[in-house]
């Protein structure tokens, strides 16, 4: 099938990662759990994972199909 699944996975985790990290940065008082800003930290982790997937998709060569 023509869809490289790394595109949607990468895009989704980049989006969720950005949302979480953004919330952690701007709304840090409500992002704390056990003394750590978990939203910010985990948002960065998800961003990294999303970027890794996108990098794999780009390197793999298949463009996301046009809608």
């Amino acid at each position, binding site marked *: *099938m023509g*869809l490289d699944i790394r595109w949607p996975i990468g895009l*989704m985790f980049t989006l969720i990662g950005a*949302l979480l990290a953004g919330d952690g940065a701007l709304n840090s008082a409500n*992002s704390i759990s056990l003394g750590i800003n*978990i*939203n910010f930290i985990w*948002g960065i982790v998800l961003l990294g994972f999303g970027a890794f997937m996108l990098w794999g998709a780009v390197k793999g060569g298949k463009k996301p199909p046009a809608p």
Partner: protein
Amino acid sequence: MQPIQLQWLDYTILAAYVAFVIGIGWMLSRYMKTSSDFLTSARSIPTWVTGLAFISANLGALELVGMAASGAKYGMSTAHFYWVGAIPAMIFLAVFMMPFYYGSKARSVPEYLKMRFDERVRALNSVAFAVMTIFASGISMNALAKLLNQLLGWNYNAALFISSGVVLLYVLKGGLTSAIYTEVLQFFMIVLGFAPVVYLGLKDVGGWHVMNHSLQTVALNPAALNLKDAGISYASNAWTSAWRPVLAGPSHNPMGVDWFAMIFGLGFVLSFGYWCTNFLVVQRAMAAKNMTAARNTPLVAAVPKMFFPFLVIVPGMIAAALCTLPDKGYRIPPPILSPASYARAIEVVKNARAGDPADAVTAVSAALGTKVAPDKIVSLVAANAASKLSDDQIKAGLYNSIAENDYDGVILSLVKRYCPSGLLGLALTALLASFMSGMAGNVTAFNTVFTYDLYQAYFAVGRSDRHYFITGKVITVVGIALSILTAYFASMYNNCMDIIQLVFGFVNAPLFATFLLGMFWKRTTATGAFLGLFGGIASSATFHALTLAQGNSPGVKGGYLKVVEVFPSEMAQNFWLAAFAFIACLLLTLGISLATKRTKSDAELKGLVYSLTPRIVDDQQPAYMRPAVVGVVLLIACVVLNLIFW
């Protein structure tokens, strides 16, 4: 537990996930041209995708919720469901069985049975499988809707229809490929959604060593956490070692199982029966793009599967450990009771006289409809008599006095405890993803078996591919509708889950004997396989009717004819039942095969039976790609894990 209040960020994450899974189905819809595209993915998918889908289809929410529950109840021994009950069978499937499934060009497991034996065996397997997948899907959806209702206050019907509707949308658009692709996305969602909960839980409890130390306290007095009856005590390693408590005997481990039942019942019969013959998981490997990819699919899946205990069982162990640390203020959640029950019990506490504690305890227990800790009720009544407590204070006291645990609530209680808004949305989305992957897996397996093995085989032979393509889509809708109906059925009967699991056990346990003999002994006849399988199922039912687990009354849980054997636990009863049914099916099939004539020649069985099929030569591939080599490496890794947690 009070309902959780979600914020806009949580809803946004949930919405993003739903949009992406529907989007995947929509993008794939353009490639759906034939019934093969829709029902079997036209054998076009790369290994890493089928591998992760293989594991994700099995990773339903019942497993996520259930394994955390077992982690609290039984500790590290629960890992046997992975290290003994999954990895060896997955390796066996890859190395020995996949060549027959994939090489025979069968489109489903029942179709393989038809090629190897005859229509009777195919029909028996297809009908049993179709019914089981619908019930599995419905039970899973009922659990999800109940959870969303209790946890978020969502309407049960709305939760059921919306989640089923999302699955329907993406499966109807993109068929099996859509289910497989979204399962990969769901796999990452589940891992990345629950990993921070495990990390925060370990941090809270004080690290791995403190958790182990606390679990030693649990083992010495499990009654303190309502895990066992008063007076029961185990060796200090009962919750932290995987093997030592099991080797010590059934009375020395909280599961109540012995090593033979564990290794033969779980590790051989149940495990191989599930992983090697269940079309739900085998279908993912059969969708791979070539034989090597198909054989490597279970091996790719085995890598994360090996480490899943740390994601799904450790949270339960953390929960049990937290209960022993008074400063943490945590308890395993009690069963969810209705506000009316609490209101009745509050009135009882208010009207109780401090001088009559026994009556108060009985009355509170009756009002709540559950067991309570007498000393806590007596203290509560005394505190209320001394200074009038508010309703909320009494309710909190009642909550803490309930002497029963709702183990299925463990994982959610930790999510609620540690996750701020945002991370909460991520964890709940992971839970939703696990439910959806389970349902989509069942529905796609159901529509393939129903369309090819029942409809095409018996009702509409020789029609055009377009006809079966459309039928596959219609059956997808029917499958979802039947799942919703069974969800309502499951919600009406408390013991529905027990009955269904029982039926699964009856059907699945002997099936592996049929496959084992069929694939590795060319003398196995169709009549032998058919009657052996029937006899195996009947043996399961008879075994169950004559045995019982300690603490259960005769009925759905067994012993309804006569009790001739009592097992220390339900798990032990199930493991022994599986072993008995397997041996019965094996001996019956052997005997009847020897007494009946073969109906298929050696030429017809080529590619279906081990001794008549040319060996696959892997020499052309690098060592790390050869299934046998990878299988041995994984087996060694699995043994090492067993030794580390011995």
